[in-house]
């Protein structure tokens, strides 16, 4: 009897410990699953060698799922005055990049974030990702001077802070804002 009384607290402590261990176990699994969960709500990663070659020398390789197809069409139709710059793309290159962007656009990638982008854009045709209302809202607490820091340069330079942005991970825990 006395023995049983002393055993009970030990048993209880043992159970609690098991619970704790199991708890961290679950947390770990949760963390591991995140990689897969990205695909459900982050813009989908789509790749095209021509797109990469022609576009990423100058700027972050924006994921096609960040804009509606009509926006990409407008951007590509204006490629001879791309925000004041003539990209000098030949017809085949232009065609290939346009269809790649349109085939993987926000409405073609059924992820939570692309859906949010579509909803926030409404019937507008933004040519800049930085003009998408939902994306602007997500960055509202970042002061303009932060974007001006030498190693960031502008709001358009996603990869400066979204360290895994090129892999489609725009999660807050993958954000590192350079101090300078």
């Amino acid at each position, binding site marked *: 009897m006395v023995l049983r009384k002393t055993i009970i607290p030990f048993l209880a402590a043992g159970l609690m410990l098991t619970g704790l261990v199991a708890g961290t176990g679950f947390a770990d699994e949760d963390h591991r699953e995140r990689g897969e969960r990205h695909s459900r709500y982050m813009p989908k990663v789509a790749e095209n060698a021509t797109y990469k070659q022609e576009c990423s020398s*100058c*700027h*972050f390789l924006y994921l096609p799922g960040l804009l509606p197809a009509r926006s990409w069409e407008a951007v590509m139709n204006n490629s001879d005055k791309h925000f*004041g710059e003539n*990209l000098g793309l030949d017809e085949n290159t232009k065609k290939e990049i346009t269809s790649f962007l349109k085939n993987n656009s926000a409405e073609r990638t059924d992820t939570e974030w692309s859906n949010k982008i579509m909803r926030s854009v409404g019937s507008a045709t933004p040519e800049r990702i930085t003009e998408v209302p939902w994306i602007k809202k997500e960055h509202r607490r970042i002061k303009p001077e932060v974007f001006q820091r030498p190693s960031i*340069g502008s709001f358009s*330079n996603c990869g400066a802070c979204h360290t895994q942005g090129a892999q489609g991970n725009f999660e807050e825990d993958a954000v590192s804002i350079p101090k300078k």
Partner: protein
Amino acid sequence: MRRKISYLLALAVSITAIGTGSADAATKLNPQMQALVDSYQKEAGVKAFSADEGKKLFMSKRMHSVKKEERSCTTCHTTNPAQTGKTVVGKPIDPISPAVTKDRFTDPKKVEKWFKRNCEWVLERECTPKEKGDYITFMTSL
């Protein structure tokens, strides 16, 4: 002993020679690029290109008629071709100097593409064959 010293001296001299050799050596263009520069020369009708003129072009600033801002090659490439540059949206650009970035000025198609894009950005027109030849001559002289 004396022989040892002379060996060491010879070694030191040859190391110095290698050292200064690579620092002074201009980048030699590959055959495709040489052909492109030759075609510029033919079009321009000049005897030789000038590295000094190329440097002048690289450093010159020009007011853009629409954007009303001063633009230059150096806006993105910095005034030191050996230094990493930055695009207008902040993305790093490998140094333009072929002495530092080995694949610079090795692919005629790429060179033509960037002359077209960047001459229009800075000068609001395409560059002349003379300007392109001078520019490449300057860059390969570094």
